C-alpha cells in the first residue's frame, strides 16, 4: 500500500505539514517494502488550484492513502473520485515517523 504524507521536509524525522495543497514535500511510503522517498509537491508554486495540482500528483503516483491536516473541497473531490482514502493527522503526531508508526500499529483509521 502506498501512503503519501504532507511534510515540511524531506526526511522521516521532518515535521508534518498541516496543509495539503501547499505542503512543500510529500513523503511517499510503501508499507510493504518500508521504502520511502520525498517528492516535491507541484502544488506549492501554483498561484491557484494548488489543491487540484497536488491531488493530481498524488493520483499519478498511485497512492492508496493520503494523510494531511485537512483537504480542500477541490482536492477532496478529485481524491475521492479516485478512491484514495483521505486521513487527517491524529492529534498527537508531530513527525512523519509518528504517522508511519501509527499505521504499522494499525492505529490509523483507514
Amino acid at each position: 500500500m502506498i501512503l503519501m504524507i504532507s511534510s515540511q521536509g524531506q526526511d522521516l524525522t521532518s515535521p508534518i505539514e498541516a496543509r495539503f495543497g501547499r505542503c512543500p514535500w510529500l513523503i511517499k511510503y510503501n508499507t510493504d517494502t518500508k521504502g520511502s522517498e520525498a517528492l516535491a509537491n507541484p502544488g506549492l508554486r501554483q498561484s491557484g488550484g494548488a489543491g487540484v495540482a497536488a491531488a493530481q500528483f498524488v493520483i499519478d503516483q498511485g497512492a492508496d492513502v493520503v494523510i494531511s491536516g485537512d483537504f480542500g473541497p477541490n482536492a477532496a473531490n478529485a481524491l475521492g473520485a479516485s478512491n484514495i482514502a483521505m486521513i487527517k493527522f491524529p492529534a498527537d503526531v508531530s513527525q512523519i515517523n509518528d504517522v508511519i508508526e501509527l499505521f504499522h500499529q494499525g492505529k490509523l483509521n483507514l
Partner: protein
Amino acid sequence: MKIAVASGKGGTGKTTVATSLALSLVPAQSVRFMDCDVEAPNAHLFLHPVLTRQIPATIRLPKIDPVRCSLCGKCVEVCQFHALAKVGKTIMVFPQLCHGCGSCTWNCPEGAIEEIPHPIGVMELGDTPAGIDFTHGKLTLSEPMATPIIRQLKKLDRNDQFDITIFDAPPGASCSVVETLRGVDFALLVTEPTPFGLHDLKQMLGIVEELKIPCGVVINREGIGNDQVLEFLADHHIPVLMRIPFQKEIAQGTAAGLSLIDIHPGYQEKFQELERNIRAIVAQEIREV
C-alpha cells in the same frame, strides 16, 4: 487617451478622484467612464447614470464528451489554473478554477471539448446627466473570477474613440487590477500618506513598471500619517500630480455622494490641470519611445 485610476490599498479615494476627474472634463471633452471594480462597483453613486442597456458577461467552461475523450490528459497538462484533473477514467472539471481561456479546447487532439457559456455577471451601460458615457460591470455574488468581466468591459471600449476613457480599478494588486491597467496610456495612483498606503503603492509601482505604463500619484488625506510616501516618491522621481487635504467637509460631502467639485468648485480647475499634466507626461513618453 485611456487612463486607469488605481491604488493598491482600498479606500484611498480612487472613485472620488476618478469620478471628480470625469465630471471636471465634460462637456469640453467626450468622456467615457468604466467602473472595473466589478466586485463592488460604486462610481454610479457619484455619477448617477441612467442605465439603459444590459449585456451578460459569461465565461466559457469546458464540457468533455466522454465518448470522444481518449483520456490522453493533454487538457490537464495545458491548464495553467488546474481546473481539470484526470481522475480514473474521467476528466474532472473544476468550474470555480476555470478562467475560460480555451487552452484545453485548442489542445484536445480528439475534439472532445465543447465550451458552454456560463453567466458570471452583467455589464450595464448608460449616460450620466452630465453627459458621461458610463459602463460598469457587476460580478454575481459567489462567482470567484473577476477578470473575465473586466476583459469584456474593456472590449466594449476597443473600437470607440472618446477624448478620454477613465477606468476605475478595483483595490488590491491582483489579477483584476492588472487586467484593468493593461493597455492604458497612464496610471493615476491614489494613495494616502500612511505606512499602509506606501506599502501598497510600492506594489502598484511594481505592476506599472512591469507593464511599462507611465504613472503619477495623487496624495489624498494629506495631513495624516507621516512623510514617508513623499520621501519615497521624491527618491524615485515619481511625480505628485495632486494633493487633497484631510478635511471634514470633504469626508462629509463624499459620504453624501458628492464629488470633489460639488464640495469645493475650485477642484474643477485643479482636475483640468491634472489632466493637462497627464497628457504632457504621456506625450513625452511617446516622444521618448
